[in-house]
């Protein structure tokens, strides 16, 4: 892993706050080690800015291991940059050439308002989860973990859907800013498991309604989301969500208002 040094020119979106109009500013990133990550490259630029008394470029980040989902912005039009299956924190500078000019801007979507520079508010995704993206079981109610057997293939498939990190790249990559890939991954994860069956229909209806209410666009199945997803969440999830939603809609039962027994 012998690194070399490269120089880059960055055109970065700077926006002071949610109501500011924002614009691009140009920075030089000199002597960047090709072993550094993209965020470490920005750290170096920021150290220089701070030393000069300027405000550093604000971006969300935390684990820097590609798992927390906090980081994410657009590099030259691509969410999380050019490397497939990779978050920006795991994107290393060896993937760039000396002298390159890079345009860096935040994820753009009506549902993700910019709060500063490259930081956006993605709490809409949390609200979709709040609308039924869970299994209703109180602590202390669980039966022995091996009491319900789960076929390995189902568990593996559920796991693949559950690896979504909620970064929002799917929304940023979609021309309609749809959150279908994100929402469908959670619906899939829970509908594939026996534990998720009881609330399966209600969950599909509520989560889809919550997604629409947040102002995300419709899915037209172009697959741009799948291509941008750093965790390889498959488009199959969206088909599954559509089927779950359809079945739930046509077999919906009227709500009973009766009280419980006793």
């Amino acid at each position, binding site marked *: *892993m*012998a*690194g070399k040094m490269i120089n880059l020119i960055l055109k970065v979106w700077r926006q002071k706050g949610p109501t500011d109009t924002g614009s691009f500013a140009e920075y030089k990133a000199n002597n960047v*080690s090709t*072993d*550094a*990550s993209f965020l*470490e490259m920005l*750290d170096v630029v920021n150290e220089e800015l*701070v*030393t000069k008394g*300027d*405000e*550093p470029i*604000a971006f*969300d*980040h*935390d*684990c*820097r*291991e590609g*798992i*927390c*989902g*906090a980081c994410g912005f657009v590099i030259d039009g691509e969410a999380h940059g050019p*490397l497939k*299956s990779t978050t920006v924190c*795991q*994107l*290393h500078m060896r993937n760039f050439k000396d002298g390159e000019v890079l345009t860096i801007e935040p994820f753009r979507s009506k549902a993700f308002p910019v709060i*500063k520079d490259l930081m956006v*508010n993605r*709490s809409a*995704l*949390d609200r979709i*989860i*709040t*609308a*039924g*993206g*869970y*299994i209703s*079981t109180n*602590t*202390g*109610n*669980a*039966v*022995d*973990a*091996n009491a319900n057997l*789960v076929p*390995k293939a189902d*568990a593996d498939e559920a*796991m693949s859907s559950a*690896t979504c990190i*909620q970064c929002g790249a799917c929304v940023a990559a979609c021309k309609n800013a749809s959150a279908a890939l994100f929402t469908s991954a959670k619906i899939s994860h829970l509908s594939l*498991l026996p*534990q*998720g069956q009881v609330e399966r229909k209600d969950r599909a209806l509520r989560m889809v309604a919550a997604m629409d209410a947040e102002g995300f666009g419709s899915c037209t199945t172009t697959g741009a989301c799948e291509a941008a997803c750093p965790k390889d969440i498959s488009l199959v999830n969206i088909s599954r969500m559509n089927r779950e939603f359809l079945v739930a809609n046509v077999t919906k039962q009227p709500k009973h208002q009766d009280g419980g027994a006793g």
Partner: protein
Amino acid sequence: MSKLDSKIPSGSIESKWQNHKFSSKLVNPANKRKHSVIVVGTGLAGASAAASLGELGYKVKAFCVHESPRRAHSVAAQGGINAAKNYQNDGDSVYRLFYDTIKGGDFRAREANVFRLAEVSANIIDQMVAQGVPFAREYGGTLANRSFGGAQVSRTFYARGQTGQQLLLGAYSGMMRQVDLGNVELRTRREMLDLVVVDGKARGVTVRNLVSGEIESYEADAVVLATGGYSNVFFLSTNAMACAVTAAWKAHKRGAYFANPCYTQIHPTCIPVHGENQSKLTLMSESLRNDGRVWVPKVQGDKRHPNEIPESERDYYLERVYPSFGNLAPRDVASRQAKYRCDEGRGVSETGRAVYLDFADSIKRLGQDKISERYGNLFQMYDKITGDDPYKMPMMIYPAPHYTMGGLWVDYNLESTIPGLFVAGEANFSDHGANRLGASALMQGLADGYFVLPSTIGNYLGGTKLEKISTTHDAFKFSADEAKSEISKLMGIKGNRTVDSFHKELGNIMWEYCGMGRNKEGLKKALELIPKVREEFWNNVRIPGDANYINTELEKAGRVADFLELGELMCQDALEREESCGGHFREEHQTADGEALRDDKNFCHVAAWEWAGTNKKQSLHKEELTFENVHLATRSYK
């Protein structure tokens, strides 16, 4: 010393928790609605506590520093979670998990707490499965297990290499359900800057809204801190960038004792440092040692490509030194051995500070598909970071700060020395002694949040007379004013150095003198250096921008200011503890073959430190540890 009453229930070790629950006071359902509890931090411990307390009917106010609670650093745990299920029929039991944890912690943990942890471990797996966590399964549909360091049974449950993520999503979804039901109020992008104490009891928090910059006050009947560990005192660690001691440290300054700060875990298998501008280190899960073999060349300075070094010229040193545990020796032991090999000049990589973790034998035995199924995402991560393919050549790894066993002192109820302040997960000191075994952090976080706190907080609320208060109380105003004045002070320095430059300087001191090996001379030197760095920080740090909107440099500055105080206490504690135990290795105290040499006569205690004021030496309180079930013995993994 009356303050350090551990409140361990009487009775046999097997009956303590059951008896304690039965004798605890209860709060009736109608009254639960009248009580509020603040939970700071939404990792495994915080999210599971918030969910469970919400289910019980308490009004919960949850806070996290991130934009979403699911970003908490528990998400990054890779390998797995231990539980005494004995699904493998390999001789596991609650008692064995208890025994392994006490021994793994080098006999510096409290027996009663550890037994309870082992006891509830099986319930955690049941609970997480019920919430839809997609653990790995066998073809028959039953749950799969893998092995972890410090144990000779297979008791670790896992979800590929993303167990922490899946467990956190389970706990997070449980909490979001309570948000949906209106029992939990969630506030994100808030950083706790102070604990509010009224009449000697924890009654609220002062937080900074990281988006608006406003200082906000929140009141409650009890406060839970689940704010993680302090490995970032080393600057470079496997912790996430926002991991900080701030919340715990502010509580410490309000009267909560800080226990065993020198017990830090240096994890043996991390990707080595690549250069000056590195921002953090990345862990490669301990689970890799199930199938990977650790080695260095037999001779010094062997610069050949690893694949060209024949078997006979390799030293599989863990297998050689610890034949019965081999590559699955506990973390502190494996880390020290890697250091010894590099100190001998047999380290690999350009820097000489790395050893090999080799999968060639396992790939030959099991096939690449099987290895990929087990560790695919870890191999991919390694490849992305280093540019090397671990299917084709061995990984290069080196130890790095990863976890802190020390933390706020708590009694059996997880209550600190401030009544009404409870501390859970990595933020407390309670269960891992001087060294944590792999796959036990997730277990402890969830045990605390799901099963311990809901019971012990009920006991507190049911048995304590609490005046009704609001945030108009003077104590809240006073606390908010203090937080504001600290921020103004930081903003007003307008010096010449960046926050990171101070953090790196502190980190270098800590790693050099309070890292894997410590000695009296070095620790004394660190104790001279740290106050100087701290003084310069408060006179020369530069924070651009304003405090009334997002200011990431200001956030970092507040955290580094607290690390600069904590670092000193860690060195003080390390100096005071004239023995070696677990992760605390004092070079003066070792056996002839370089193993940790405990001094049970003088140091079989918890060291709990009481804040004495800025720049004043903290006072030490001791909680004696007694071992009634596990015989105090020298640890051996040979």
